[in-house]
C-alpha cells in the first residue's frame, strides 16, 4: 500500500503511510497503542476506506469495500479476537462462508478434503476436524482460523497481536506454522508490540508513530533499542501545565491483590497529593487492576483499603461510599449514559445531595450542575442537553466532574484523555494537578507516555498482569518504560 491517509473528524489517524510485503517474507508492523495500527488493519480489510492512497495485491489494484473483497483478493486477517463459531465443528469453521456444494447442499467429501489439505499445509495434520471449535484451546482455535485463510487461497496473511493470549510454548508452535507458511511463498504481516517476538520472526519492519511511518527496513540491520526509539521519539509541547503539589500520607493501600486473570499479586500505595501513573501495553492488566480496586471486577485474593475509611474492592457502591471515584476508559459503553442529560450523568453517583425521601429537587440540582459546567468549562447548551450530543472532550469533562461532584478523595482514571482534543487534554492535566494540590490521590492509567512522564509523580509499569517496577517519574525515560512494558529486561 502506498500513501494511505485517513482522517476521523479532527483526528488524523493515518498520514501518508506506505508499506510493502514480498512473497515469502514476514513484515513486522510495530507501534504504540494508538499509533494507527488498527486503523491500517481496518483499511486493509475493507472495514474503513482510505481517504487517499492506493493498495495492490500481487500487482492487481486492491480496493476493498466489504470484508469479502479482502478474501477474494487473497488478503486474510487473523484478529486478536478470533472470528469463530464455537458451536460448529472445526471443519465447518474452516469452510465457513466458502462452502462448496450443489444448490445449497454441502458436499461432505469435498469439504473433508479441503479441510485436510489446509491443516496439512499448517503442519498440523492431527487437528481433529469433527469436534466443536469451542472445545479446543485458544492456540488450536487460532490454527483453525489460519486454515480458513488457506482454503480461501490467501496470498497475504495478517496477524494482529496473535500471541497476546498464548503461552510461550504455543507461541513457539505458532512461529513454526508462520515459518512454514513463509516458506510456501506467502506474504505475512505480523502486528505486535512484543519486541522480542518480532525479532524472532520478522524479516523486515515498519514502525508507525502518530499515524505516520517512523521508520522501516530490514530487521537484521537494526537493534531493538533502535526500534524502541522509533516508537516513542516525539517532541513534547507545552501541553503540561505544572501545578505544584506534594504527596503526604498514604490514602490507598493495595496489598497482594489478584483478580480473576489479571492482575496478579499487586502491592501499591498511593498518597494524598500524589498522581500515580500506570504504564504498560494493552492487555498488561492495568485496567483490570483499577477495576478490581473500584469493585467492578471480582477480587480473587488480597485487599484494598482507603486509609481511615474502610475496604474497597467489593462493589462500586461501597467504593463510592468510601470516597473513591472511577472514570472508565470506555465513555460510550460504560462511563456515560449517552441518551440521558448532562445533569443526570453528572449527579448519578450522589443524587442524595439534591433529594429528600427519594424525591429530587430538580431546580437546586440544575443550579449546581450549571456551576460545575462553568468551572470545568464544558461547552454545551445547558444541563438538560443529552450528553451523547457533546464532543468527546466535553463528555470526558463531565465524566471527571462527576467525581468532583461526589467529593471523591481517591480518583481512578482509566485513559482519561483518550480520543479528546489537545486543548481539553491540557485542561484535564491542569485539573489533575489542582486536585492533587487539594490533597486528593489520583491513580491514572495511560498509554500515552509523555502524559505519564509529565503529569505523574510516580509511575509503575505493568506487564502480563504484574506490576514490574515503580519509580518516581523523574527516574524513568520513555525508552525505559517501553523496555519494561514489552517484557524485556530492565536496563541500567
Amino acid at each position, binding site marked *: 500500500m502506498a500513501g494511505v491517509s485517513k482522517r476521523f473528524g479532527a483526528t488524523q489517524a493515518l*498520514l501518508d503511510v506506505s508499506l510493502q510485503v514480498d512473497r515469502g517474507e514476514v513484515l513486522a508492523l510495530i507501534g504504540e497503542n494508538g499509533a494507527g495500527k488498527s486503523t491500517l488493519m481496518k483499511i486493509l480489510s475493507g472495514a474503513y476506506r482510505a481517504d487517499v492512497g492506493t493498495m495492490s495485491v500481487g500487482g492487481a489494484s486492491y480496493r476493498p469495500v466489504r470484508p469479502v473483497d479482502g478474501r477474494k483478493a487473497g488478503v486474510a486477517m487473523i484478529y486478536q479476537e478470533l472470528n469463530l463459531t464455537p458451536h460448529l465443528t472445526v471443519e465447518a469453521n474452516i469452510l465457513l462462508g466458502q462452502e462448496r456444494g450443489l444448490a445449497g447442499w454441502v458436499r461432505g467429501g469435498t469439504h473433508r478434503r479441503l479441510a485436510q489439505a489446509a491443516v496439512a499445509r499448517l503442519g498440523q495434520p492431527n487437528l481433529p476436524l469433527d469436534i466443536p471449535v469451542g472445545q479446543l484451546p485458544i492456540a488450536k482455535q487460532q490454527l483453525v482460523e489460519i486454515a480458513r485463510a488457506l482454503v480461501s487461497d490467501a496470498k497475504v496473511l495478517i496477524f494482529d497481536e496473535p500471541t497476546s493470549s498464548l503461552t510461550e510454548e504455543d507461541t513457539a508452535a505458532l512461529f513454526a506454522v508462520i515459518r512454514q507458511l513463509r516458506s510456501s511463498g506467502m506474504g505475512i504481516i505480523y502486528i505486535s508490540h512484543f519486541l522480542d517476538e518480532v525479532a524472532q520472526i520478522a524479516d523486515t519492519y515498519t514502525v508507525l508513530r502518530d499515524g505516520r511511518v517512523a521508520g522501516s527496513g530490514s530487521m537484521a540491520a537494526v537493534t531493538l533499542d533502535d526500534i524502541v526509539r522509533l516508537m516513542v521519539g516525539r517532541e513534547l509541547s507545552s501541553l503540561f501545565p505544572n501545578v505544584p503539589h506534594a504527596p503526604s500520607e498514604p490514602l490507598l493501600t493495595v496489598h497482594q491483590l489478584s483478580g480473576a486473570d489479571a492482575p496478579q499479586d499487586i502491592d501499591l500505595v498511593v498518597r494524598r497529593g500524589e498522581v500515580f501513573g500506570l504504564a504498560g501495553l494493552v492487555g498488561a492488566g492495568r485496567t483490570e487492576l483499577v477495576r478490581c480496586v473500584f469493585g467492578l471486577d471480582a477480587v480473587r485474593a488480597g485487599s484494598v483499603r482507603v486509609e481511615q475509611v474502610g475496604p474497597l474492592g467489593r462493589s*462500586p457502591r461501597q467504593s463510592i461510599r468510601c470516597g473513591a471515584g472511577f472514570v472508565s476508559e470506555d465513555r460510550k*459503553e*460504560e462511563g*456515560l449514559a449517552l441518551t440521558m442529560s448532562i445533569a443526570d450523568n453528572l449527579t448519578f453517583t450522589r443524587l442524595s445531595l439534591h433529594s429528600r425521601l427519594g424525591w*429530587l429537587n430538580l431546580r437546586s440540582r440544575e443550579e449546581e450542575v450549571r456551576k460545575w459546567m462553568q468551572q470545568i468549562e464544558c461547552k454545551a447548551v445547558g444541563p438538560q442537553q443529552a450528553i451523547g*450530543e457533546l464532543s468527546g472532550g466535553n463528555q470526558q469533562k463531565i465524566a471527571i466532574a462527576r467525581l468532583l461532584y461526589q467529593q471523591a478523595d481517591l480518583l481512578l482514571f482509566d485513559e482519561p484523555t483518550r480520543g479528546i482534543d489537545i486543548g481539553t487534554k491540557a485542561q484535564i492535566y491542569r485539573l489533575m494537578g489542582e486536585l492533587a494540590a487539594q490533597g486528593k490521590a489520583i491513580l491514572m492509567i495511560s498509554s500515552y507516555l509523555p502524559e505519564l512522564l509529565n503529569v505523574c509523580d510516580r509511575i509503575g509499569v505493568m506487564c502480563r498482569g504484574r506490576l514490574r517496577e515503580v519509580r518516581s517519574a523523574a527516574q524513568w525515560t520513555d525508552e525505559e518504560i517501553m523496555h519494561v512494558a514489552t517484557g524485556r529486561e530492565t536496563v541500567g
Partner: protein
Amino acid sequence: MSQQSDAPSAAADTKHVHVTAIIRSVISFLVPFIGLLVVTLIFTAINLPNGWFLTIFRMKLIANQTATVAMGALGMTVIIISGGIDLSVGSLLALCSVSLAAMLRAGVDPMLAVFLVLSIGMAAGAFNGVLITGLRLVPFIITLGSMLIFRGLAHLVADQKKIQAAEQTPAWLANLMTITPPGSWKFISTGAWMVVILGIVLAVVLRYSVFGRYVFALGSNEATARLCGVNVPRMKIAVYAVGGFFMGIAGIFDFNYLGKQGDPTGGDAMELKIIAAVVIGGGSLSGGRGSVLGTLIGALTMTVLTTGCNVVGVSDPVEKIIIGAIIVAAVAIDRFLHRGRN
C-alpha cells in the same frame, strides 16, 4: 495520534445540534398523537354517511375498553424503560382476576381481597425480578417461563373453570367499569379515571424521583448505572414488582369487565397488546426511552382502531392486519426520527 482543537466551531455546532435535537424530540413526542388523530379522522370520514363516529357514548366505551390494557401498560412502561420486558403479564392478569373471584366467594372481606390481589401482583413481579437478577438470564426467557407458570397457577386456583362472584361483589368494586349515565360529572368510568390518576402519579415518579432516574439510567446504560453505585439487582426487582402491581389492578378491572367473574383463560395475548401500547407510544425495547403519556395514547389508539373497525364493519381478520401494520409503522417512524443519534 495528532489532533487539533475543535474549539472555534464547537459553540456554533453545539447550538445547531441542540436545535435539531429539540425539533426531533418534539416531533417524536407528537407522533403518537398524530397517529391517534389520523386514525380517528379516517374512521370519522368513512362513517360520515352513517353519522358521527365519536359520539359521547362511544368515547365512554373506548375509555372503558382501554382501561385494562392501559393499566397494564403503565407498569410495562417502567419495565421497558429499564431495558426489560415482561411476557407474563397476560397470565398474571388472569391469576389476579381468579384470585379475586375465589377470595370473594370464600367470604374474604372485599377490601382485604383487593389488597391481597395487589400483593399477589407485586409478588409475582418481584418473582420475575429475582429470577432475572439471580439467574442472570434475559427477561424474555424468564418471563416466557413465568407466563406458563402463572397461567397454570390461575387454572389451579380456579379449578379450571370460571369463578362467578357477582353476588359477593360490593357496589364500590362492582361499579369500577360501569359506563356513567348521560350528564354525569364523572363522564368516564371510575376505572378509566384511575388510569388517568395513576398515570399522572407514575409520570411524576419517573421524572422527579430518584427511583425514576435510576429506571432510565438502567435502560440507558446498565454498566454506567453499576459504575455509579446503583444497586442494579435491587432496582430490577423493584421495577418488575411495580409492573406486577399495575397488573394486579388490571386484573381487578378484567374481573369487572367479564361480569364479576374470574376467568383462568382471560388475558390471553394481553401481553402483546400491552407491549404494543408502550411501543406505539414511543417506548424503545432497547431501554432508556418511553413515556406515560405516549403509552396511554398508544393504548387508546388500539382501542379506537378496534372500535372503528367494528363500527364501519371491517372484519376481524382485516382488523388484525391493520393493527399489526400500525405497530410496525409506529416503530419504523420512531426509529427514523431517532437515527443518527448517539
